[in-house]
Every structure is written in structure tokens, then in C-alpha cells.
């Protein structure tokens, strides 16, 4: 039992204990939840501190030897930042939910279950294991939305479930193709990365990439398979939205760097132009549609589509071998940084939207206005999170997007440069839409519901402030994070160039 497996399964263990223990006081449940998350965060921090390059904390147990699938986990520079993000965000959600009274035990157990699942996805080194965790995340989130959501939540939850489930079926097909293409057949990701399957069969490799790509694109989500996202967010509870946007979406981008790029390098390179185009469309389309939204949560959801688009754009550009390798490394580093940064920022934004809903049960921007007077601390947090999201330097979003754009343009081929230059427009549109949101909710004169909004409570502040603080820390001193990511992105670039 390594520290990694302990970190993965500790939340599940706690969830099981909570589930079978009858009649516990809500307060005790909540604090247990917080404590477990805190311990988990410490475990991840220990792994971070002890990591010195390459795949570490590896565990390999036989599970289904007949199909070459095993319990194989480990972490490297791609997964550790996401594990840390997961631990932080789940802890923050636990703190944010401290005051809850509605079915707390089940809620806590479900989130702890989800935490294990998310940590599992980011440390799996076996495709079957990866898939199992990937799929269970959908199940867990379905119950979160259906059980604790609001509005038309049952329908939204069903849509979310069916849509992403279809996506993961495509992913499974792709994984099976990888399995069959490998000689000898295996689901082991390390082996598949070492000897890419289907290397001499471009047609089947393209089909495998298509299947894997569809599966991951739905999860990311990439335009045009993104429409499950806005209703799921709108009707999910605040903590659910934060986890959905902060962690679950990252599984898509993570799958691209972990599975698609290293295991299907030739197909990735051959279709890099298409991937770049999809990323660019997501960026521009997502930010434009977000600009037209009236509902705060839908607005944040569409900016997520745009922000994920940058990741896809950068990873596509990293597949153009004609480009400069240093620039492509910067693009991949930017993409991974964007996953972390977006998790922090959007997590904060969704929790803050939850505060708004908690007070007035409405997400419509037109009903608010002048909140900065009634709720100055709330307003301050929203402003910092919004500026982080629009990529203001000094906050993490800039570090991510600057690397993505510079790396994409700096690759030096004409069409990536053009795509990068067009994607730059996205940051202007994003700035416009966030300013519009700030002006309509926080600034100006009061709206009809302004009187109902009170400032953030201590628990809410304790939950959101660390997210903005981390964003600021990464924005000013990105080296600790980049030192972790850069060797891994260099490896990804060299793997995809094979």
C-alpha cells in the first residue's frame, strides 16, 4: 500500500464508513468530511515533495490477467498537479458545504466517493482502470445533480449522464482498439506508451484516435459536443458545479496528453490541423456564446468551453512537428497549467455563484446590481476571480494562456500562427463578457434582488479565498508548478514526435 493508493482510497473508505454509520450528527459528518479531505491533501503534498522526476509511487497488482489489465497506478509531472488540484478543490467544497443541512451524510459520502474516482483517473496507468474511474465519475456526478440540484435538475442530470456516457462508450471502443493493436495485447498504459500500437496502420490508428477523441471531446467539452454542460451546471449544487468544471472537465484534457498523444502519435500529428481547428472554434464560439448569456452559471459554463478550447488548441499545435520543439513544449506546459488554473478559478466562480443562489435563488444577472455595496467581500472575490479568468497577469490564467498562445504562434508554422493569432481574440471577448457581468451584478445601482444578498459567511470565505490566493500565487511565482510540469510536457512532445 503506497502513499498513492492510500490517497486514492482514503476518501472511499471514509465514504463507506459514513454510509454504514447510522444517525450521526450533521456537524460531525461535515467535519469528518473536511478532516478526511485535509488528510488527503497532506498525502498529495507529501507525494509532491518527494517526487523527483519520472513515474513515481508506482503500484502494480494483477486484476484481470486474461485481458492484460491490472491495478497499475503511478504519478508524474502531468498527474501530480491535477491530483493536487483535486485534493484542494474537494477540501474547499467540503469547507464550503459546512453549513448544509439537507441529507448531509449522503452528500458527504457521495463527494468522498467522487474524490476517490477523480484521484483514480489522474493516477491510473492502465486503460481499463482509467476507464472504470472515468465512468464512475459520471455516475457520481449524476447523483449529485439529481439528488441535490435545483430547477430542472433531474432532466439535466439525465442529459449529462446519457451524453457523457455515450462519450465514454466511444472511449471504450478506442481503448479496445488500442488493446487489439498492441503486440502483445495489453491495456497497460506504460507499455502502450513505450511501443505505440497501430504504428504501421494509419487507417485503424486514425479510427482509434477518432473513438478516443470523441470520448474525450465530450468530456472536455469541445464544440459541438458541449451542450450537456450548461444545463448540468445551471441545475447542479454549487459544490457539484465546482467539481464538475474544476475536475471532471480536466479528465478530457488529461486523457489527451496521457493517452491520445503518446499512444497514437502518428495519427495525432496527421490530424493536428483538425485538433487545432476544433480548439480554435471552441475558444471563439464558447466566448461569443458566453457573451450573450443572461444567466451567471451558464455564462461561466460557456467560458469553460472557451478555456478548455485553449487546451485543445495548444495540444493540437504541439502535434505539428514542423514547428519549433521549444515552442511546442511551452504550449503543452501552458495546456497543463490551464487545467490547474481553470480548476481553481472556475471552482471559485461557481462557488460564488452558489452564494448568490443561496441568498436569492436566482442566477439572472438582470435582477441584481450594485452588490458591491451590500456585499463588499463577495464583490472583491468575484472581481479577483473574474479578472483571473479573463487572463489578467499576476493571476494564474495569464500564465496558462500566455504560454498556450505564445507556444502556438511561436511554433513557427503559418497555420498554427494564424490560429494562435485568431485565438488571441478570445481573451478580448472574455474580458468583455466578464466586465459586462461585473457591471450588471456588482456595480451600478441596485436591482430588484440586491436587497436579499448578504455578504459571504466565514465558511464561504474560508473556502473561496484559498482558491483566489492560489491563483495569485501561481500568477506571480509559477516556477514551483512549472518545475513539476515542464519535464513531463517535454516528454509528451518527444513522444508525440516519434
Amino acid at each position, binding site marked *: 500500500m503506497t502513499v498513492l493508493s492510500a490517497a486514492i482510497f482514503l476518501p472511499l473508505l471514509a465514504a463507506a464508513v459514513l454510509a454504514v454509520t447510522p444517525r450521526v450528527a450533521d456537524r460531525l459528518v461535515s467535519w469528518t468530511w473536511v478532516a478526511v479531505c485535509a488528510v488527503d491533501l497532506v498525502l498529495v503534498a507529501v507525494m509532491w515533495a518527494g517526487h523527483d522526476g519520472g513515474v513515481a509511487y508506482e503500484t502494480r497488482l494483477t486484476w484481470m490477467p486474461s485481458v492484460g489489465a491490472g491495478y497499475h497506478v503511478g504519478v508524474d509531472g502531468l498527474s501530480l498537479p491535477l491530483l493536487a488540484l483535486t485534493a484542494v478543490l474537494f477540501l474547499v467544497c467540503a469547507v464550503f458545504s459546512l453549513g448544509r443541512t439537507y441529507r448531509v451524510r449522503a452528500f458527504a459520502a457521495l463527494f468522498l466517493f467522487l474524490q476517490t474516482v477523480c484521484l483514480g483517473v489522474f493516477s491510473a496507468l492502465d486503460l481499463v482502470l482509467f476507464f472504470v474511474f472515468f465512468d464512475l465519475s459520471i455516475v457520481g456526478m449524476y447523483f449529485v445533480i439529481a439528488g441535490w440540484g435545483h430547477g430542472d435538475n433531474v432532466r439535466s442530470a439525465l*442529459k449529462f449522464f*446519457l*451524453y457523457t456516457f455515450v462519450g465514454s462508450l466511444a472511449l471504450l471502443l478506442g481503448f479496445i482498439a488500442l488493446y487489439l493493436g498492441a503486440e502483445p495485447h495489453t491495456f497497460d498504459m506504460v507499455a502502450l506508451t513505450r511501443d505505440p500500437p497501430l504504428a504501421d496502420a494509419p487507417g485503424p490508428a486514425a479510427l482509434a484516435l477518432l473513438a478516443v477523441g470523441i470520448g474525450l471531446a465530450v468530456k472536455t467539452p469541445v*464544440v459541438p459536443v*458541449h*451542450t*450537456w454542460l450548461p444545463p448540468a451546471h445551471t441545475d447542479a449544487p454549487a459544490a457539484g458545479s465546482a467539481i464538475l468544471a474544476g475536475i471532471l472537465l480536466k479528465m478530457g484534457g488529461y486523457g489527451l496528453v496521457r493517452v491520445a498523444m503518446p499512444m497514437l502519435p502518428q495519427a495525432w500529428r496527421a490530424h493536428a490541423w483538425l485538433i487545432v481547428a476544433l480548439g480554435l472554434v471552441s475558444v471563439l*464560439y464558447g466566448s*461569443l*456564446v458566453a*457573451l*450573450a*448569456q443572461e444567466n451567471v452559471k451558464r455564462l461561466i459554463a460557456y467560458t469553460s468551453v472557451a478555456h478548455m478550447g485553449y487546451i485543445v488548441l495548444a495540444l493540437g499545435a504541439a502535434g505539428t512537428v514542423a514547428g*519549433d520543439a*521549444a*515552442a511546442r*513544449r*511551452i504550449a503543452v*506546459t501552458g495546456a497543463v497549467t490551464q487545467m490547474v488554473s481553470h480548476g481553481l478559478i472556475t471552482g471559485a466562480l461557481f462557488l460564488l455563484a452558489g452564494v448568490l443562489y443561496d441568498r436569492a435563488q436566482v442566477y439572472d444577472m438582470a435582477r441584481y446590481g*450594485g452588490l*458591491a*455595496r451590500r456585499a*463588499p467581500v463577495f464583490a*472583491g472575490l468575484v472581481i479577483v476571480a473574474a*479578472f483571473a479568468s479573463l487572463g*489578467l*497577469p*499576476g493571476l494564474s490564467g*495569464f*500564465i496558462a494562456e*500566455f*504560454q498556450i*498562445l*505564445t*507556444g*502556438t*504562434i*511561436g*511554433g*513557427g508554422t503559418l497555420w498554427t*500562427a494564424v490560429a*494562435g*493569432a485568431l485565438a*488571441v*481574440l478570445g*481573451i*478580448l471577448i472574455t*474580458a*468583455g463578457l466578464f*466586465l*459586462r457581468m461585473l*457591471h450588471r451584478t*456588482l*456595480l*451600478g*445601482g441596485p436591482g430588484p434582488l440586491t436587497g436579499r444578498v448578504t455578504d459571504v459567511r466565514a465558511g464561504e470565505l474560508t473556502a473561496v479565498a484559498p482558491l483566489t490566493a492560489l491563483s495569485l500565487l501561481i500568477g506571480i511565482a*509559477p*516556477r514551483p508548478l*512549472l518545475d513539476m510540469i*515542464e519535464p513531463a510536457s517535454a516528454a509528451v512532445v518527444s513522444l508525440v514526435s516519434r
Partner: protein
Amino acid sequence: MSVLGWALPFLPATAGGLLALCGRRADRAAPAVAVVVACVTLALAVVAAVTRPVVRAPFLEGLPVGMAIDGLSAVMVVTVAAVSLAVVVFAAGEMTAARFFGLLLVFVGAMLVTVTATDLVLLLMAWEVMGAMSYALIGFWWRDPDRVRSAGIAFLTTRAGDLGLYVAAGAALAGGGSLALAGLADAAGPWPHVVAAGVVAAALGKSAQLPFSFWLSRAMAGPSPVSALLHSATMVAAGAYLLLRVEPLTAATGWAAWLVAWTGAVTALALGAVAVAQHDLKQLLAASTCSQLGFMVLAAGAGAVAGGAAHLVAHAAVKSLLFLCAGAWLTSLGTQSLPGLHGAARRDRLVGAAFVAGALTLAGLPPLSLWITKDAVLTVAAEESAALYVVGLAGGVTAAAYAAKTLVVVLRPVGTERPGRPVSVWEKAPLPLLASAAAGFGVVVLWWDAWGRLTGDAGTRAPGPGGLAVSGALAAVTMYAAARLAHRVRRPAVLADWLLLERGVHRLVVSPVMGSARLLARFDDTVIDGTVRATASAGRRLAGITDHRVELPLDRIVRDVGRGVRGLAALARRPQTGQVHTYYAQAAVLLFALAVVVVLAG
């Protein structure tokens, strides 16, 4: 030494950040803290200008960031720190909010990084932070939706230009792998052209040159100290500074230098004309800022770095002085419209004298500073092209005209003294120093060679007596004529409305973008999500069809079969009556039938 390099920008930035974070709790202490921090910053700036610290730190992969102070940066940091101190002292007499002083200090810190950064990454970071702080300062009175809107327009307009820096950074990476400002011109292939285009776009946006000028009109929505800072040594000055800094790059591309020079010259003339047409003192000064910045941009395009830098410093002093005077009158008299300021200079003699000194300098009257620095720019521009010189000269004429227009108003004697709040001592304190700097900076011409070496433009031509005489005479004549005729000239609506730039941008850019955003949102709902919903309902309908057309008939067959079997079973049950005589009868019939079969078969 490296401590100094970091401390110079980070002292005001950190102090400002803390003040803003503390909010109202720090209101009482904020003005004093801000004044002290600004004093220390000025001291650090002077020491740094002498000792020239260089700092570097790893940042992104292969792209370290650094700050260094060369001659041009030394001039800039001292100017920025000095003007900031003046503005902070003035603001201490007018504002109390910790948030205000906090944002102001962060703004100053960002400007200090901008003028010392040695690479595009750090420059872009500070550049954009400065833009965000200007947003927060312009929209400082956030309860007023109009001011907030103005702040948003200012931020988005300058950020639209900033996009150029992102592209430039990518292109610089593609062209040589280094983002150092000094090496931008050496990039390989076609990339220097892309870099130049990006940098020029960003600089023109920041400096409110055509076609971006309108945001500066909007920037007037902020408190007066903000205008004084924004329009002099920071923000708009950053654009001019950047163009002066990357002059080798624009010169190397050829077309960029030409574009920059002409944009500057045309802005100097056109926005000068706009300034003449304004009825509001702050709007007039804002348009004048665009126009004066035009001379610096022209200098950068024509290669007159020394002249441009001198003009920047002198103009920083002049414009901060004038805005502070306007601010003092605004708080004291409650108005900034020119008709409302009749005789304003006669009320408080110190403020009045300072304003007159500033306005005369702005007019380009000999022997005051802008007369000399402007001519230093035009002298070099004349070598480039005569047309450029003439347009620049015409821009100078407009300066004399609008300066005369303000002087006529504020100096006109008034019969009755209107009531008004007296100007506080804090507000007055910086004015004499700024006024003397504004009027007297022209002495730099006496050491022009040294100034040229300091700003990295050694061997530059000093302004000649001929050019000086022409521009000085023109200024004097224009002032006289304008003072006599100003009230008779009709003001064209196009000029009064800032060349309709904002309306044009709204119609050509903002409306189409918003329209397409709404259209795409509807497309997203109806077509893309509609397809998903249609797929789902098609699935349900298919399920219904299989239910009705396949499942039901199939089920009916099964039911019919069952019913048939049941019928047969019922038939089969009938003989089983439980009565012995029927069984005998059946046995008899069966035996008979058996006998028949046997007989027939036999």
C-alpha cells in the same frame, strides 16, 4: 544591488495591494501611508537611476524575465516616481479611501515595471496590470453606471491593442526564441514584421493614438488625480515609451516606422483640432494629451528618440500640473465646464499662476519647455519628410489655439466672487514644483549631446534656431488670434464628438460582435442542442415505434399462441369429467376405433 531593482516597483505595488485589501479599515491611515510610500519610491528611483541595477529571474521555460535600468529607463523611473508623488500628495487633500490609494500605488508599480522590463513577458504583464488598475481607478465611483461603462470602454479598447503584444511575443519566439526587447529586431524570417505590427498596435492603443483615441475621453470619468497620473507619466506615456524603446525594430522593418510617424503626426493634428472644439476643460486636456502624445509617437517613428523622451518628460510635468489645477477647481467650484470656470485663475492666485504657466508651456510659447522639445522632434522629422514636418507644425498650432482658449476663460475678470470651497494646502503643495519643472525643462537643450547619449540616441540633431523661431512665432501669433477669435468660431460637431470614433467603433465592432454573440447563442440552443434533443426524442420515438409496431404485434402473436394452446387445453379438459360411465364410453369408443384400425390395417 538586485534588492533595489526588485524593491523599486514592488514597494508601491505591495503597499498598494495591502491598502486595497484592507479596505475601509485603512481609510484613516491611507493618505499618509501613500505619501510616505511615494516619497520612498522617488528616492529609490533616483538611486536606481544612478546605480542602474539589473535583475533577472527564471519564469517560463527558456523565457526568463528581467528588469534593467539604462538611460531611457532612468529618465522614465524618475519621471514616473516624481509625478506620482505629486499626484499622491494632491490626492491626500482630496480623497480618503484606502482603496483609491491602494489602486493608485499598484498602478505606479506596474508602470515602473513597464519602463524597466527587458523582455516582452514582463512588459506585457505590467502593461496589462496597469490597464486593469486604470479600469479600477476610472470606475472608482462604481455606483454611477456611466462611469463604470467608461471604465469598461477604456479597458477593452486598450486591451484590444494589447492583443498585439501577445501576437508579438509568439512571433518573437518563432523568430529567434528570445523575447528580449533589445533583440526583437534580430528575429529571423518574416517574424520581425509581425512583432513590429503587434508592438505598434499595443503602443498606439495605450497611447490613445488614432484610431483608439476615444478611450481617453472616457477616462475622464475617474477622479482628477487619476486623470493627472494617467495622462502624464503613466499609462498613455507607456505606449510612447515602448515605441521609443523598440525604435530599432520599427526602423528595421521600414513600414512600421513610417506608419508610427504618420499616425503620430496625424493624431497630433486631428486630436489637437478636437481639443480646440471642447467645452469641457478635462475633455480639452484629454484631447490635448492625445495630440501631444502624437509628437512622441512621431518622434519614435522618425528616430528622434532623444527629442521624444524630452517631450515625454516635459509633457508629463505640464499635463499633471494642468489636470491637478482642473481637479482643484472641480472640487472647489464644482464644475469642469469652461463656461463655468470664468475667472477661475483669479480666485486662488497660486493655482491660477500654476495653471497659466502650464497652459503657456502647452501652447509651445518660447522659452518654455514644450516649445523646445517639440521642435527637437520636428527637426528630426523634417529630415525624414517635409510633409511630416508640416503636419507636425500644424499640430503645434492647434496646441497654441486650445491653450489660448482655456487661458481666455480662466483669466477673464469676473464681477462677483462666487462661493466655493478653498483649495487645501495638500492640493497646492505640488503645484509650484510641477510648474517650474514644466516651464523650465527646456534647459535640457543646453546639454543636448549628453541628453542624447543618456537616452541612447547619441549624435542626434539639436533643435536649430530657424525651426525654433518658426514654431515660436507661430505659437505666439496663433495664441493672439485664438484669444481674439475663439468665441466667434463655430465648433464642428465631428470635432466636438471626438471624430465620432467611439460611435464608429460601436457601430463597426461592438454591435456586430454583440449581434453575432446573440445569434450564436440562439444557434447553440436551437441547432446544436436542438440536434441533441432531436436525437434523444428520435430515440424515444424509435422506442415508441418498436413498442407499437414490433413489440405489440410480436406480443399479440405470443398471446394468440397462448390463447390457442389454452383453447386446446380447454378442449382436452372436457373429456375429463370424473364420472366412470363417460370414461367407459370413451374406452369403448377408443377400443372400437382401435379395432377399426387393426381391421383396416390387416
